[in-house]
């Protein structure tokens, strides 16, 4: 049983296994379920993820609060037609992340990954990576296992709650999970998975949770899009051989410390950040009267 990243890595390296195998073995030990049951259940979760990543791609899904809706469709069309700087793969991932967030904000069905506010990043990146890499079902499940393993470590030793740790704890954790998963899907080493996760968390360290009018709509949806891109760039950096100077477990600890030191106003209370701007307050008034 691993609790920290270095333990996960040691288990994989000493037994010459993939990270996904170690995470699966831990889950079997924890729950008593069989490998097949766990893998199949994970794939069922992935079906929910895929559905939410597709739902708003070709139609406008309006949020309950009315702040967002239609951006996934816009970015999807742009990714197909325009000569974007990011390229169609990255733009498609961004559109899918927006789609999940829009579905979530419409009180639609999603799979929290690790939370609902950050539910776009893992689905968008894993589906897009699967297409780009021409990955089969088993490879996708392996990617999800690694992502879940990284999430387990972050939740155990820090937090994935925006109310506790700010957006860095939600969209940061989601991106770190996704990046580590995509590294394994791409054939990278266990070390590279952890490097990618570390890079992701560092990239958004300190990011506050400041939902306008307290709604999980804005800036949440766009932070899912940027979180997906953060995950993809971190994956590629790690695969290129870039290393995080600070080890993963210390980055997680730092993220937690930063989260705890964020004032109450910047942890999902809608009292700070862009929620507390003139426009943010006006929107709050308009939504709640």
């Amino acid at each position: 049983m691993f609790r920290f990243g270095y333990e996960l890595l040691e288990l994989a390296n000493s037994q010459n296994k993939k990270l996904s195998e170690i995470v699966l073995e831990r889950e079997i030990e924890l729950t008593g379920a069989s490998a097949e049951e766990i893998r199949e259940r994970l794939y069922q979760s992935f079906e929910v993820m895929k559905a939410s990543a597709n739902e708003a791609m070709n139609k406008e899904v309006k949020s309950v609060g009315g702040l967002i809706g239609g951006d996934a469709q816009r970015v999807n069309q742009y990714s197909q037609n325009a000569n974007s700087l990011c390229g169609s793969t990255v733009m498609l991932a961004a559109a899918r992340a927006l789609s999940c967030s829009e579905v979530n904000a419409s009180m639609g069905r999603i799979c929290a990954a690790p939370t609902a506010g950050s539910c776009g990043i893992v689905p968008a990146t894993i589906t897009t990576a699967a297409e780009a890499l021409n990955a089969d079902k088993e490879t996708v499940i392996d990617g999800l296992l690694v992502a879940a393993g990284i999430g387990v470590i972050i939740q155990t030793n820090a937090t994935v709650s925006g109310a506790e740790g700010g957006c860095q704890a939600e969209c940061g954790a989601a991106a770190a999970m996704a990046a580590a998963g995509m590294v394994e899907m791409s054939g990278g080493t266990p070390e590279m998975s952890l490097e990618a996760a570390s890079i992701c968390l560092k990239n958004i360290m300190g990011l506050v949770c400041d939902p306008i009018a307290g709604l999980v709509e804005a800036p949440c949806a766009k932070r899912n899009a940027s979180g997906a891109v953060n995950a993809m760039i971190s994956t590629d950096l790690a695969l290129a051989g870039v290393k995080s100077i600070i080890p993963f477990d210390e980055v997680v600890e730092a993220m937690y410390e930063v989260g705890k030191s964020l004032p109450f106003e910047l942890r999902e209370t809608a009292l700070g950040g862009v929620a507390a701007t003139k426009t943010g307050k006006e929107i709050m008034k308009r939504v709640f009267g």
Partner: protein
Amino acid sequence: MAIKQYGIFDILGPIMIGPSSSHTAGAARLGKVAKGIVGVDFDSVKFYLHGSFAKTYKGHGTDRALVAGVLGMDPGDENLRHALEMAEEKGIGIEFIEADLGSYQHPNTVKLVFETKGGREVDITGSSIGGGSIVITNIEGTDVSLTGNRPTLVVKHKKLEGIVTKVTKVLGEDDITVDIMKVERSTHRDEAVMIIEVESNIGSNVLRDISEVEGVILTRAINPL
């Protein structure tokens, strides 16, 4: 206390109705677990909302989710968004009150006060601690720490000699295997609380048998969702 062991479906999951795992899915679970602890029909529920729950509950659908939970819905139920209307149709009184439950409380904390059909008030406090996970922290004045992931018995009792043996004997007779058991002091000096994690779900017959043991004041069961 031992570190909580999160499983992969605590992280990739729950499959839920949006928009917030801590404010919507966690709230629905809190409601449903609390309903299970109360165990009898009720006329009304008052929700005392603390911290972030108090500040943002409307925008996150926390109100609808809590009510969906006490109506017995799961966090992934597509009817969750209609919970307020459904409670009204059933004639269940619902009230939301912004409250300060204490600075030591988790920011997403709610105290639910049920008015049962028998005219009794049952209060339960719990927090939504992220990703849809919850912890029940107080049942009718007794501090506990229950995640709702394992079947658990909470037995408040007078400090009588041999009472622990009598309670576990009842469990044995009802074919319930004890996993973890601890006895804690209550706020009342002549009383104590047994927290008993067991291997299988707890039926009403078990609760009835335990409540008949001499000195038992209150028996509550939490069965995982």
